[in-house]
């Protein structure tokens, strides 16, 4: 084994070119992680500035135009450049093939192409800042978005290009899950992270084309005045909202479904227990992916859409609420009679259960027709989607990064600092966003640069919370970077997990992932089965001996045709 461990995916070729032109899903995943983190940093700094501006009514640090642009760029960055690619394209890219026992994704070249499309799209969007202002929120509602200047041409083009990247990533993952599973890895033995990435990929492929055509139409309307959305030209602005939300509601599931996958992994691993209701948790991800297409109109209860569609959309919304709720209950019952270890990733999983539940319940509230009329476009909504997107996706992402950090970098981070930071994130997050529920339901509208004095106390709490949250996130950045320099060397399976990336790949995986084709003989969370079943070295009965003798590390070959 010693000889094999000298070659890993990081050190086999260290040149810059080998990174920029890599077709290795692991390196592409890391590059995504870097890009996403940078965008998250930029978006996060904007968020802190926004909160600072709202510390007092009137002008605190910036004028209305600067404020309006700040929240727009914050949202565009966070939604299109961070949340949508965050888990699937970064962690999914890295770990999906590993968990499948595959050597790579189905189309490695396409994978690299997606990454560059994503970068190009992000650059195009941001170059709009040079041309003019990006204003109007991430929703680009017509006709306002068409009146603010030519920058909209860049934003639509950029979002179109990033959408194309998202489509190709999703397409790649679907084919990978269907065609690249290692022998023995049947559908009911797939890790739940794979199920969730698979469901996400379905949404990416099916929903994203519609934002593409929407952006094209918006572009053409600005360019040629084709009169589809702009009422001044005879168009219908509500039609734009249908187009936009046909994508953007399912896009919410692009953001949250992968988080479900990570949480399932974390709770399973750190409870050392089979995830309760595995089949339900797995299939409900797929079900949610499809049902997500039927509910977009609940964003439009006060938009002037017909009352019939409001009622239908409200009813369908609950079809999604139920399976999501049952998932949460399944995670909690997984802990029942488990053996729970409170490592940093598990702390994040528990924080997720707390914050995501609040996000979910507030989601039920805003799905109710009579209540949503009052709550729509207030801070209640802002709080709700931050509880889901940040309290859900970002918390899960943090948990996932901590969980897989040893496998990605070969280093352990400082566990004590990790726990302290996690608790600070929890406190800061709730202090930032919980007051927003209250001020929202009391009538504070969103996207307001200025506000009435009665809301100041809540805004102050929220701003102080944002400082704690910001500090905690910087702390994580700090100790993670430090671990790269002086972190302990990680063992190949520090958590005692049972999925293939832990059991069959080296501490730092080989460029081709596995030295020999893994053969799977049990489920991903069968902790109660004999430990020998999961070890790389066969137990001697030969029945599930995974290591094929005589196979050279650099050119693995001769996988069995069928399991």
């Amino acid at each position, binding site marked *: 084994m010693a000889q094999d461990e000298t070659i890993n995916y990081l050190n086999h070729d260290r040149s810059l070119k080998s990174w920029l032109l890599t077709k290795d899903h692991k390196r592409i995943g890391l590059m995504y992680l870097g890009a996403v983190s940078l965008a998250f940093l930029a978006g996060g700094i904007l968020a802190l500035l926004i909160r600072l501006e709202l510390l007092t009514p009137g002008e605190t640090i910036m004028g209305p135009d600067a404020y309006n642009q700040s929240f727009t760029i914050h949202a565009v960055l966070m939604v299109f450049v961070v949340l949508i690619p965050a888990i699937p394209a970064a962690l999914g890219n890295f770990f999906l093939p590993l968990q499948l026992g595959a050597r790579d994704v189905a189309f490695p070249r396409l994978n690299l192409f997606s990454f560059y499309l994503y970068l190009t799209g992000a650059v195009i969007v941001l170059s709009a800042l040079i041309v003019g202002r990006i204003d109007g929120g991430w929703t680009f509602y017509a006709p*306002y978005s068409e009146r603010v200047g030519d920058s909209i041409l860049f934003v639509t083009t950029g979002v179109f290009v990033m959408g194309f990247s998202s489509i190709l990533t999703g397409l790649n993952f679907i084919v990978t899950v269907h065609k690249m599973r290692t022998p023995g890895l049947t559908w009911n033995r797939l890790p739940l992270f794979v199920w969730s990435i698979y469901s996400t990929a379905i949404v990416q492929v099916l929903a994203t084309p519609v934002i593409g055509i929407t952006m094209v139409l918006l572009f053409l309307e600005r360019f040629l005045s084709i009169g589809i959305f702009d009422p001044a030209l005879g168009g219908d602005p509500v039609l734009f909202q249908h187009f936009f939300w046909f994508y953007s509601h399912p896009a919410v599931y692009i953001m949250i479904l992968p988080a479900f996958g990570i949480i399932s992994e974390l709770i399973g691993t750190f409870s050392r227990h089979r995830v309760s209701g595995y089949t339900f948790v797995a299939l409900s991800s797929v079900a949610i992916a499809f049902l997500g297409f039927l509910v977009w109109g609940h964003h439009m209860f006060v938009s002037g859409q017909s009352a019939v569609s409001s009622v239908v959309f409200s009813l369908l919304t609950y079809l999604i609420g139920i399976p999501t709720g049952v998932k949460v209950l399944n995670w909690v019952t997984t802990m029942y009679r488990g053996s729970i270890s409170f490592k940093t990733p598990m702390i994040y999983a528990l924080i997720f259960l707390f914050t995501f539940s609040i996000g979910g319940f507030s989601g*039920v509230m805003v799905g109710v027709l009579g209540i949503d009329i009052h709550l729509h476009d207030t801070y209640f909504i802002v709080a709700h989607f931050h509880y889901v997107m940040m309290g859900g996706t970002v918390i899960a992402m943090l948990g996932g990064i901590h969980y897989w950090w040893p496998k990605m970098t070969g280093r352990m981070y400082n566990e004590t600092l990790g726990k302290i930071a996690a608790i600070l994130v929890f406190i800061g997050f709730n202090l930032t966003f919980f007051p927003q529920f209250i001020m929202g339901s009391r009538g504070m509208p969103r996207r307001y640069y200025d506000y009435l004095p009665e809301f100041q106390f809540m805004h102050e709490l929220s701003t102080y919370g944002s400082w704690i949250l910001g500090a905690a996130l910087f702390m994580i950045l700090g100790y993670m970077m430090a671990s790269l320099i002086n972190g302990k060397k990680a063992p190949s399976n520090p958590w005692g997990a049972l999925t293939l990336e832990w059991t069959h790949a080296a501490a730092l995986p080989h460029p081709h992932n596995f030295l020999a084709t893994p053969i799977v003989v049990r489920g991903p969370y069968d902790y109660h089965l004999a430990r020998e079943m999961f070890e790389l070295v066969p137990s001697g009965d030969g029945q599930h001996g995974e290591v094929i003798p005589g196979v050279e590390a650099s050119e693995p070959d001769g996988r069995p045709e069928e399991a």
Partner: protein
Amino acid sequence: MGENGSGWLPEAMSTVAAEVDALFYFTLYTSTIIFVAVIGAMIYFGIRFRRRDESEVPTPVHEPKWLEMTWIVVPTILVMIVFTWGFKVFVKLHTAPPDSYEITVRAAQWYWEFEYDNGVTSANELYVPVGKAIKLNMSASDVLHSFFVPAFRIKMDVIPNRVTSVWFEATDVGTYQVFCTEYCGTSHAAMLATVHVVTDSEFRQWLATQNQDLPPAELGAQLFNQYTCNVCHVDTAVGPGLTGIFGSERKLSDGTTVIADEDYLLESIVDPGAKLVEGYGLQMPATFGSLTQKQLDGLIAYIKTL
């Protein structure tokens, strides 16, 4: 439930508000109970089943069927209750009584204008009689806006080239805040208005007195505040300040100069982009072209006095 409402919600001042609030609190409390139960279980399991020994391997638990059924059936029943209830409230919020008093609302960047049945208009001040159903027929002249009165629990988008409507019946006299809740540009946050709920006789009296002629400068002063001109043109950097402007020489962004006479002021109000003062971009909406000649004369007369 005092002056400041009930903790989570502001004061409830319309006939439907109480129903919305009951539904809100039902959903909130039900959610809270389930949430506490779930998180409680999570914390209990976390303590009770914490790992005591590195080598322990728990056996899998098969959760009983009745438990799985329970947590599918019970939430389903709950959300169906909430949906049906929400639907009823929605229908009520959506259907104005046939004998409603109708007021036309026009929204523009960044003010509200209200027109009553006798042709009287007011900007950013809506007067309505108490205890009477009021139906607002709303349209916008530029981009999307949304009419939101928290105290009445009503909200509706206002769309150009289309009429949407919303109705309410105020239960108490008083003044209530109106917000624009659809993002509409620079001064979105300043697009506020006030609903004055007054007694029926006060309302009639107000309507009647609105027809009286004001001296031009006073009318202008009123309009200047109603249309929130002061937000950008007094003591801010958004638009050029207007103090002492009349008769002065203005340096324009194309390098030429012009004397700020009546003609110049009129043109600048009606067509703000025609002559831009040096150092300012075109921020001001062109919606003031729809003002009447009398109103324009009033504004100019008022600006002269500044």
